[in-house]
Structures are given as C-alpha cells and as structure tokens.
C-alpha cells in the first residue's frame, strides 16, 4: 500500500513537471521574436508531450511523436528558417493594438468554449482509475489495430502523405520557373 502510494506520488510529480514544461514551452513558442528559438522551444513541447503519452500507456505513439516531430518536422522547420534567414519580429506590438486585444479575446473565448463544452459533455465522468491491460499501447497491439481494424485509414494516410510530397515538389519547381522568366 505504501509502495503503491509512493508510485502514485512519483507519477504525479512526473506529470506536473511534464505539464508545466509543456505549457511553458508552448508559451515560449509563440513569444520568442526569433523563429529559430520558437522551433527549438517546440522540441521541448514535443518531448514533454511524449512523457505524458508514456504516462497514458501510449508507448508507440510517444516513440512516433519523437521520431516524426523532433526528427523530421522540427529539422525541416530549422532548415527552412536557416534558408529564409533571420527575420525578427516583435510578437506583441506588430501592428495596431486593437488587433492584439481582439486576438487575445478570441483565443480566450475559444479556451472558455472548449472548457465549457468538455465540462458539460463529460459531466464528471472523466474520473476513473482506468486499469488497462498490459498490451495496451504496445507496438504489437497498435500494429494489429492499425493494420487489421483501421486498414483503410492507414492506406488513406499514405496517399495523403504522397500527395503532400508531390505538392511540395510542384510548389518548389513552379516558383523556380517563375523567377527564371
């Protein structure tokens, strides 16, 4: 019993650290004036989210998150930021202040709407101990669910990725022709 409660405390501590670093790095992403630092802050956000996925028994999604986001997406962002060159921009005073006030009000209203909608829909039912089987979230289980139950979604995902790659190539080659003319 004492061992179980100690484990619970450890899980809570890990969760608190992960949640605060997740929200803190999220604020850092939108408040750095240099986009390079914003992209680096996004890595911290992704890592803390991966820790929370591990706490939620989603080992495969946590690994895929680190591989896909930190390994591919953020590296691509950093490459393009270095290619475009440093363009500084002050985040909070870029234009008329009523636009900033309106943006903050709109984002706050969206947050309140999400909280109210989720709270009304959940109605206190989100509190459970949530015991899951040992296989939940393992790569073998994900592979079975993905390739047997959700095979169509898997195939459509691959087609979406292929179309995006072709679109990226077309965008790049078209802009090259435009400057040559």
């Amino acid at each position, binding site marked *: 019993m004492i061992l179980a409660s100690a484990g619970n405390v450890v899980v809570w501590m890990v969760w608190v650290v992960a949640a605060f670093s997740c929200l803190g790095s999220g604020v850092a992403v939108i408040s750095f004036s240099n986009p390079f630092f914003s992209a680096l802050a996004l890595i911290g956000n992704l890592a803390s989210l991966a820790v929370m996925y591990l706490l939620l028994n989603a080992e495969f999604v946590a690994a895929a998150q680190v591989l896909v986001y930190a390994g591919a997406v953020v590296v691509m962002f950093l490459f393009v930021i270095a290619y475009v060159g440093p363009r500084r921009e002050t985040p909070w005073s870029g234009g008329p202040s009523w636009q900033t006030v309106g943006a903050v009000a709109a984002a706050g209203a969206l947050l309140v709407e999400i909280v109210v909608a989720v709270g009304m829909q959940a109605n206190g039912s989100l509190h459970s101990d949530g015991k899951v089987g040992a296989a939940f979230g393992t790569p073998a*289980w994900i592979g079975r669910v993905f390739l047997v139950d959700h095979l169509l979604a898997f195939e459509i995902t691959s087609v979406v990725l292929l179309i995006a790659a072709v679109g990226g190539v077309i965008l790049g080659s078209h802009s*090259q022709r435009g400057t040559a003319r």
Partner: protein
Amino acid sequence: MTGPDVAWYVAVAAVLFGIGALGVLIRRNTLVVLLSLELMLNAGNLALIALSRHFHNGAGQIFALAVMAVAASEVCVGLGLVVALNRRHLSLDVDTLSELKG
C-alpha cells in the same frame, strides 16, 4: 501507478490549444504561425490519447497517428509555400500576403 485523472490531461490539452490559437492569431511571421498550428495539432493529439486511455479504445491512438501524418503533410506544403515566397522576394508577413495574385 494510477496518477492524475484523464480530466487533467484534457485540461492541459485545452490550455495548449488556446496557446496555439493565440499564436496563430497574434503572430505575423508565417513560420511562427505554422509552429503554432503544430501546437494546436499536438493539443488535439493529447486529448485523443487521453480519451483513448479512458475508454480503453485503440481508435484514439490510431487517429492520433493519422493526425501526425496530416501535420507532416501540412508542414511539407506550408514550408514549400514559404520557400516559394522567399524565392520571389515577398514578405513573410501574413498581413501583407492578402492577395492571391501570382
């Protein structure tokens, strides 16, 4: 190993989504707007995985993986657009990119 309730994870996801939405609305640099979109997609992923754990249903994790693929596609096309804009020496400020004229 119980830890916090699913409601805490959903609350973090909601706040993270709000931060991402604020970034999309308040920032002018196209690259930072794309980074804020990533924050919003990640908040959705966190809510999906938390509720997948809550309902003992694998579909949430599958959907989170599909969202990751969509996010990768979005970055591919968005960064292609940024590079195309930069080649034409256009500004990356989203307020000045108001015309769909080539």
